[in-house]
C-alpha cells in the first residue's frame, strides 16, 4: 500500500509542478460542452433533457484523454519499466495509478461542475450530494477499467484510438449508472430517489476493480 501511495504522490507532485492534465482536460471539456449546446436547435428543451448524458459523454472523452496523459509520462524514457522494476508487488503500481487518475478526474469534475450548471441553467447546489456520489462511483469503475486497459495500450502504436475502442464498450454500465445519478440530481432528487442504482453502481465498481486487480499482473509481465 505504501508503494501505491508513493506512486500516486509522485503523479500529483508532477501535476502540481507542470499542470499538464487537469487544466487541459478542463479546457477540452469546456469546449465539448460548448459544442454540444450549439449543436442543439435554439429554444428547444432538448438540451436540458439531454444534459446528464452530455455531461457523462464529456467525462468519458476527457477521462480517456486524462488516462492517456497520465500514461504518456510513463512511456517517456521507459519510466513504466522502471516503476515495474521497483521492489514491490506490481499490483501496487496499478493501485497507485488508479489513485492518481481518480484524483485528477475528481478535481477536473469539481472545476467543470459550476461551469456546466451555468451553461445548462442549473443551480450548482441542486442535488449536489446525489450528483457527487454518482460522479465518485462512476469514476471508480471508469478508472478501474481504464488504468488496466491503458497498461495494455501503452505498447500499441495507435493507442489514442485503441484505448477508447476497448474502454467505452466495457464501461457502458458505468455510463448508464452515472447518467441516472445525474438525471435524478438535476431534478433535485436525493440519494434515496436514485433507488437501486446506488448499490448497482457500487457493485460494478467492486467487480471491475477486483477483476482488474487480478488481471493486471499478467498485463505487465515480461
Amino acid at each position, binding site marked *: 500500500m505504501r508503494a501505491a501511495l508513493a506512486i500516486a504522490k509522485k503523479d500529483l507532485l508532477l501535476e502540481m509542478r507542470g499542470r499538464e492534465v487537469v487544466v487541459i482536460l478542463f479546457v477540452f471539456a469546456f469546449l465539448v460542452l460548448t459544442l454540444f449546446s450549439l449543436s442543439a436547435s435554439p429554444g428547444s428543451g432538448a438540451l436540458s433533457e439531454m444534459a446528464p448524458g452530455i455531461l457523462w459523454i464529456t467525462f468519458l472523452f476527457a477521462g480517456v484523454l486524462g488516462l492517456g496523459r497520465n500514461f504518456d509520462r510513463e512511456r517517456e524514457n521507459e519510466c513504466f519499466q522502471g516503476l515495474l522494476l521497483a521492489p514491490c508487488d506490481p499490483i501496487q503500481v496499478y493501485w497507485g495509478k488508479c489513485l492518481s487518475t481518480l484524483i485528477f478526474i475528481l478535481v477536473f469534475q469539481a472545476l467543470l461542475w459550476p461551469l456546466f450548471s451555468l451553461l445548462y441553467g442549473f443551480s450548482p447546489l441542486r442535488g449536489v450530494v446525489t450528483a457527487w456520489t454518482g460522479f465518485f462511483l462512476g469514476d471508480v469503475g471508469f478508472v478501474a477499467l481504464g488504468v488496466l486497459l491503458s497498461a495494455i495500450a501503452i*505498447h500499441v502504436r495507435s493507442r489514442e484510438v485503441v484505448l477508447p*475502442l476497448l474502454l467505452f464498450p*466495457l464501461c*457502458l454500465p458505468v455510463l448508464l*449508472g452515472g447518467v*441516472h445519478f445525474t438525471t435524478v440530481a438535476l431534478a433535485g432528487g436525493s440519494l434515496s430517489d436514485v433507488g437501486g442504482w446506488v448499490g448497482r453502481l457500487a457493485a460494478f465498481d467492486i467487480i471491475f476493480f477486483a477483476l482488474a486487480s487480478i488481471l493486471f499482473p*499478467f*498485463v505487465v509481465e515480461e
Partner: protein
Amino acid sequence: MKKTFDILWPITAVVTIIAALGAVFLYAPVERTMGLVQKIFYFHLGSAMAAFLAFTVVLVASVVFLANRSPRWDNLAVAAAETGVLFCTLVLITGPLWARPVWGKWWVWDPRLTTTLILWFLYVGYLVIRGSLPGSKGALAGAVFGILAYVDVPIVYFSIRWWRGIHPVVIRKGEVGLDPRMIPPLLISLAAFVLLVGVLIKERSAIGDLEFRIQRLEVFPREDSHE
C-alpha cells in the same frame, strides 16, 4: 481415431446443414402472419448460439492460456474470437432483416439488441488488440481482455434493462407461439450451427498452430525437428 474424427466432423456438419435447409424450407410450415420472413429465425437463433459458444471458448482458452502459457490455447482463443465475431455479425444482419417487416423498424434499442451490439464491439476490440500487438504481449493482453469482455456482457445486459425501467420484453417464457412442426427444423438448424462453428474454430486454430510452427522454424531452424 483422431483422424477419423477430423474427417467425420466436417462431413457431419455439411450433412446437418443440408438437412437443416431441407427441414426449414420444405418441412416447417409458413408462419401465418409473418410469412416466409419468419424462416430467418432458424438461422438467426443458430448464429446467436454459435457466437455465444465461440465467445465462451475465448474465455476458457484465455483462462487456460494464462495458467499454462501454451501457444495452442492462445491460437484457439484467437480462432474462436474471429469465428465469434463472424457469427455475431450474422446475428446483427439477420435480426434487422427480420425486424423490418415484422416490427416495422430495422433496429430498436431493446436490451437484447443493444447487448448484442456491445458484444460485437467488445470482440472487434479483442481482434484490434491482437492485430496491433504481436507476440507474447499481444497474447497476454488478449487473454486479459477476453476474460474482461466475457464478464462484462451480463453486466451490460442487466444495466440496460434496469436503465430502461419498464420495457416490453419481446419474447417471454412460454409465450413463444411456435408451431410443433417448427421445433424439429429449429433443433436441426441449431445442431448445424454448433457443428459448423466447431469446425471453423478447429480449422482456424490449426492454421494458427501451423503459422506458429513456421515462425519458430524461421527463428530456430533445428528446434522443431524433435516434435
